[in-house]
């Protein structure tokens, strides 16, 4: 199927052709030729005036119009692709790091350019784009799209880049899957290795980036009106970075701290504030202009309701009292004994039968694991709801109940769990910017140079044979208009030698 990148040029072709015809019809009739003298032509058959007006002035108009139309067609940039060619499934990293500004534009545009080149080398002309990270605002195309359409789709995607959430299921369907990413998500290495990924197009070179990776709030145990907050800053670039972090509640500054981090280092800052009537708490990294490749991750905000929302948790009777106390102490849950619920906490194999995020709490019983709370999250294979498994020594944890810092860690872990489903109602927000290594572009499987000719190559060859005759026609006309031999009519006079007698 033939497509045009700039179809507007096609409209200009008939207009130009009509203009050329008009000029030839109403302009000077016939060719103009210079002669040394006219008198030998006097009496030679002259065209009758009537017939001259009726006929086309010069048949050359058609030749010239064709040439101009061909050139207009070339400017329309036709691209040929056939439906018989394979369609590649392209997993496009729609994470925020792909929105980083490189020297010549956003990183995702550079990646798209590299993808186009790679696909054209392989003769692939249509792709089925898939976002690497799911997002509620993404509009995924229903069917294959051309490389030209892909540009518009990605532009829409990157109006609101997603955070690096769960990776999609491994593509193992035997099709040629492509991955386009800056590979800042460390999980991608395993994903690429295990999945049936045909090629990886990696992009990204900018490395100066610091990010706010987390902003969280929780009520304190001793004063529920006082919110204990935490911001985490990470230097994901390659050089030393510094700046200041400012926290504002509804525009009023409540916290400011200068920070300086080496490459790969991260730092957490704690603060406390009150938001009695609810509001928006915002953390901002303030840095020198142009010092940050990805400004989008320098800001986090959190909406705090007037009455802090608590997830309704149905707790398994088999759970210990200590767990109930812990869950309430986090300030994130309210224990209920009947639906509706937001969280199902199970400590035994008995299921409540309610399709809700489930928290499996396994008491390790290891007295040594006093400071360790591990949370593992995985979707339920049947309901798709997230399930978390917490390995904790609850007795030991309760023993340190008064330790606010420890509780904060536990709350953060639970918050991370809850975020998987109800992130918009949790006092926690975060940026996921990946590791500090923003790797340079590479291709896992470089395209072979000796592959079959792609459609793009064939198209280029086709249009070369269109342009060459068009230019040749115009040059021929130019030569004829100039009168051919007239070119050499006025040549320098001969130089003659000196004379000696």
């Amino acid at each position: 199927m033939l497509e045009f990148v700039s179809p507007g040029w096609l409209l200009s072709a008939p207009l130009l052709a009509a203009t050329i015809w008009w000029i030839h019809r109403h302009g000077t009739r016939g060719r103009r030729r210079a002669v040394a003298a006219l008198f030998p032509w006097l009496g030679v058959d002259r065209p009758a005036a009537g017939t001259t007006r009726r006929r086309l002035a010069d048949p050359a108009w058609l030749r010239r119009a064709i040439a101009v139309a061909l050139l207009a067609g070339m400017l329309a940039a036709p691209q040929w692709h056939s439906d018989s060619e394979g369609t590649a499934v392209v997993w496009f990293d729609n994470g925020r790091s792909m929105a980083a500004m490189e020297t010549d534009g956003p990183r995702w545009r550079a990646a798209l350019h590299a993808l186009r080149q790679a696909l054209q080398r392989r003769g692939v002309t249509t792709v089925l784009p898939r976002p690497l990270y799911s997002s509620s605002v993404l509009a995924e195309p229903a069917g294959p799209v051309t490389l030209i359409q892909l540009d518009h789709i990605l532009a829409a995607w990157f109006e609101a880049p997603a955070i690096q959430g769960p990776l999609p299921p491994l593509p193992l369907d035997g099709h040629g899957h492509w991955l386009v990413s800056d590979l800042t998500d460390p999980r991608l290495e395993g994903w690429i290795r295990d999945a049936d990924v045909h090629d990886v197009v990696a992009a990204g070179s900018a490395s100066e980036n610091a990010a706010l990776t987390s902003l969280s709030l929780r009520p304190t145990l001793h004063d529920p009106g006082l919110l204990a907050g935490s911001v985490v800053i990470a230097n994901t670039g390659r050089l030393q970075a510094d700046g200041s972090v400012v926290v504002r509640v509804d525009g009023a500054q409540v916290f400011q701290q200068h920070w300086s981090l080496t490459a790969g280092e991260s730092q957490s800052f704690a603060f406390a504030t009150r938001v009695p009537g609810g509001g928006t708490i915002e953390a901002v990294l303030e840095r020198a202009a142009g010092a940050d490749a990805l400004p989008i991750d320098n800001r986090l905000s959190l909406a705090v309701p007037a009455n802090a929302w608590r997830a309704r948790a149905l707790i398994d009777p088999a759970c210990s009292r200590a767990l109930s106390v812990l869950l309430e102490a986090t300030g994130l849950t309210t224990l209920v004994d009947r639906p509706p619920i937001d969280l199902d906490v199970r400590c035994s194999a008995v299921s409540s039968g309610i399709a809700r995020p489930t928290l499996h709490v396994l008491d390790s019983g290891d007295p040594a694991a006093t400071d360790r709370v591990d949370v593992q999250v995985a979707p339920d294979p049947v309901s798709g709801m997230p399930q978390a498994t917490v390995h904790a020594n609850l007795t030991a944890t309760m023993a340190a109940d008064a330790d606010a810092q420890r509780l904060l860690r536990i709350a953060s872990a639970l918050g991370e769990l809850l975020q998987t489903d109800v992130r918009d109602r949790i006092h926690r927000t975060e940026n996921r910017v990946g590791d500090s290594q923003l790797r340079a572009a590479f291709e896992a499987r470089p395209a072979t140079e000796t592959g079959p000719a792609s459609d793009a190559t064939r198209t280029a060859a086709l249009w070369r044979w269109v342009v060459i005759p068009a230019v040749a026609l115009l040059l021929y006309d130019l030569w004829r208009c100039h009168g051919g031999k007239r070119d050499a009519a006025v040549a320098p006079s001969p130089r003659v030698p000196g004379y000696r007698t």
Partner: protein
Amino acid sequence: MDAAALTIAAGLDEGELRRHAAIMARLFAGRPLLVHGHHPHSRRAGDGIEFLDHRAYQPGDNLRDVDWLATLRTGRTQVRRYRLEASSDWTLCLDCSASMGLPSAAKWRLATQLTAALAYILIHLGHRVRLALFADSVRGLTAFGRGHGGYMAIVRELDRNRPPDGGGDSVPGRCIPYITGGGQAIVISDFLTDDAMHTDLARIAARTVHTRAIQVVDGDDCLVTGTGETTLFDIESGAELVVTVDAAAAAAVGSRLDQHRAGLQRHCERHAIGYTRADVAQTWQQILLDGIVRPGTHDA
């Protein structure tokens, strides 16, 4: 003179010119140069070949000049006197109008070659030569000169001028003020005007003891490439004419040009003007030897 300066791209070199000048000097021995029935030289006695008259022997006269028959007839020793072959003034009138650049550069190239060669030979033979380049006015002029200086002045003038891209006219009569009365003139042109410059040629001939017309001819004169309806315009006057170009028309134009040349030739005959046809297919050497030095070959 250095060797590099003797070699020229147009096919002229000094050695060849000198050889031609020598040949012509021999050919001209015993008869006036280019003259039929006229007396281009002064009628003073002096060194020469052509017999002038007798006078009484005077001491110091060369005994070889004693005419013994006249001595016996008159009873006094008579010596032969010869006509002084002193130099005469030659004006080379070269047409540098726009038509000389059509249909190709060959016409102008041949015209300048002929002009330079004639200038060289005439100077070599001891004449004074001047160049007048004319179109609708005199575009270039040199003083009468001899020797290397005179020749180089002509060469420089030739090098400075060339046919323009258009406009102008061909009026050889503009050269008349610069032609010495009693001198000689050579008009080099394509003579492609309606009247073939008859009037001006006659006026020039009336002022000189001898005039020669060299018509530079190109087989493609006034013809155009291609066929079909064509707007022709005169390179000089700019006048336009819409014609249908085909083989028949081209043949008619060729025939008309032949008639035009024949008319010029007849005109030259009537006014005792030498006529030479110089076709661009020929070399300047052929034209000089066949058309000028051997009178009658192409002469009127």
